[in-house]
């Protein structure tokens, strides 16, 4: 689906990303781990075409993303930001419908086909009952699900999520991630950053760990997320243990 090769990005003199290479395939949820400021967001901005002054290549569906025009790129890669609060109170339905913009002409509004896509996306993430509620009035978890639905309506094959659970409570966070996991299982590629290594064990098919802008480890969660990795990334001693067939990180404070 997407192949990142030797990606190096710098702000001025300082390298934010250094020689990062990895790939993400359809049907796979790739979890990006790393401390604050390690360059996860920059990596995502490069993939999404928001930054173009990098060295290396990002190839999506066989094409260099830098050469793909914005509207076509939007039909390939969708972005799910952290839940936010826009200035105007759009209905949840309108918010999702905005995702279909890349599929309509510059002077046109979404039509019947796009309306159906938006309705289907709302049903897929299980918030069809909220369609005509105001986006500003629903809970943080519901907003995040709305943005996930929007990325589905965008019909991209790759979805990029920047810490989708950062502003959510325990339950909402897990519900959103469960939903995202199901989407990946249905054939989409999902790249998601997270602060919680347990999320890698719970939801990820593969893990990409970044340290100081470079890849520190990559692979299946079990075996990649180790006590050494946690200490090296976050400076926290921990035990990684299996319980009921599931691995978890138990921090030692």
């Amino acid at each position, binding site marked *: 689906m997407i192949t990142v090769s030797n990606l190096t990005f710098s702000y001025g003199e300082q390298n934010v990303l250094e020689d990062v290479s990895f790939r993400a395939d359809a049907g796979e949820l790739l979890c990006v781990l790393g401390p604050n400021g390690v360059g996860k967001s920059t990596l995502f901005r490069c993939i999404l075409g928001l930054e173009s002054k990098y060295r290396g290549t990002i190839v999506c569906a066989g094409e260099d993303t830098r050469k793909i025009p914005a509207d076509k*790129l939007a039909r390939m*890669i*969708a972005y799910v*930001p952290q839940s936010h609060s826009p200035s*105007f*109170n759009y*209905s949840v339905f*309108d918010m999702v419908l905005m995702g279909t*913009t890349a599929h309509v002409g510059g002077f046109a509004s979404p039509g019947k086909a796009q309306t159906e896509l938006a309705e289907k996306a709302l049903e897929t993430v299980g918030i069809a009952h909220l369609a005509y509620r105001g986006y500003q009035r629903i809970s943080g978890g519901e907003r995040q699900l709305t943005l996930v639905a929007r990325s589905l309506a965008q019909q991209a094959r790759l979805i990029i999520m920047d810490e989708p659970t950062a502003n959510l409570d325990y339950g909402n966070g897990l519900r959103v991630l469960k939903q995202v996991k199901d989407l990946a299982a249905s054939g989409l590629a999902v790249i998601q950053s997270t602060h919680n290594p347990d999320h890698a064990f719970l939801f990820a098919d593969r893990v990409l760990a970044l340290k100081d802008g470079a890849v520190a480890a990559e692979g299946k969660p079990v075996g990649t997320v180790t006590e050494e990795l946690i200490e090296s990334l976050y400076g926290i001693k921990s035990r990684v243990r299996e319980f009921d067939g599931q691995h978890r990180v138990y921090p030692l404070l």
Partner: protein
Amino acid sequence: MNERQISAKRYALVVILLTLLLVAAVFVSFGIGRYKITPATLLEAVWAKFAEKVNPLLTKLFHLRIVAPEVNVSVNAIVWNSRFPRVIMACLVGCCLSGAGASYQGVFQNPMASPDILGASSGAGMGASLAILLQLGAKMTMVFAFVASIGAIALVMLVSRAARGSRVLRIILAGIMVSSLCNAVTSFIKLIADPNNILPAITFWMMGSLAKTRASSLGFTMLPMAAGIIPLILIRWRINLLTLSDDEAKTMGVNVPRVRLTVIVCATLVTAAAVSVSGLIGWVGLVVPHLCRKLVGSNYKRLLPVSLIGGAVFMLLVDDVSRNLLRTEIPIGILTAVIGAPFFLWLITRKSEVV
């Protein structure tokens, strides 16, 4: 019937009702005044005019002619020379200010933005005062106001291009700066203007009025208005995406700088066209789009058309009050402020209620 159909029905209903209200307001506006004209007389006058225009052609082609009633000469003069240009102009100006306000609010992601946020009004005020000072006549006053208004915005865009920081913020800051520059020039012109005839003329222009509308100025304003409103209507769906963050809009396939520039240029064009004929009429661009949001929601696909019709209705009604409330006409800018300022207070105190 599901919720989507209900919301579509509601939109259709709002458009129909507002259109009916607009038609009613047009009849009322033609009718009231020092000389009352009944709807029947008005229709007769329109029919007679239509016959007068069409008959030569009909006679030539088919040897036919439409029978039309005789219309009193003074009725004809009032309907066509006085009320017709004014009614049409009120509709156009209301339409423009309200549409421009709604558009600016989207582009600047700020529900409190109004058509004069970038200094279009201050620029027009400066141009108009200069023309009045030089005694160039009504037509040149209009041209000066229009050109100065566009010039002010061009300066804003140039300055904001050079400045650093968030794009939206620096456009607004540049707008404030250019506005205050224009206001300073206007103040200076007022200072040196002859206080017996020129200063009052400038002051009156600044208050905003449709009283001096002539049929000839309709053509002058309609062209830039159409040139601005039509593209805005065409790209209105994309204005929705500008209300989100730039990055979000871009990852959804929108060419953000291009769409934003298009909206600003078009909204500025219609604002300049409106203020150059009407003077400074505030609040319309703030009040009407907010009322319309309450009626049909935030989606520009519905909001913009409703704001356009709503602006026309609002301006017509306020203009009727302005020419009929007292024996002498009240400048319309004063009335819109009297209505707008309390509305603004209500808006900021009950912000959570505004959809």
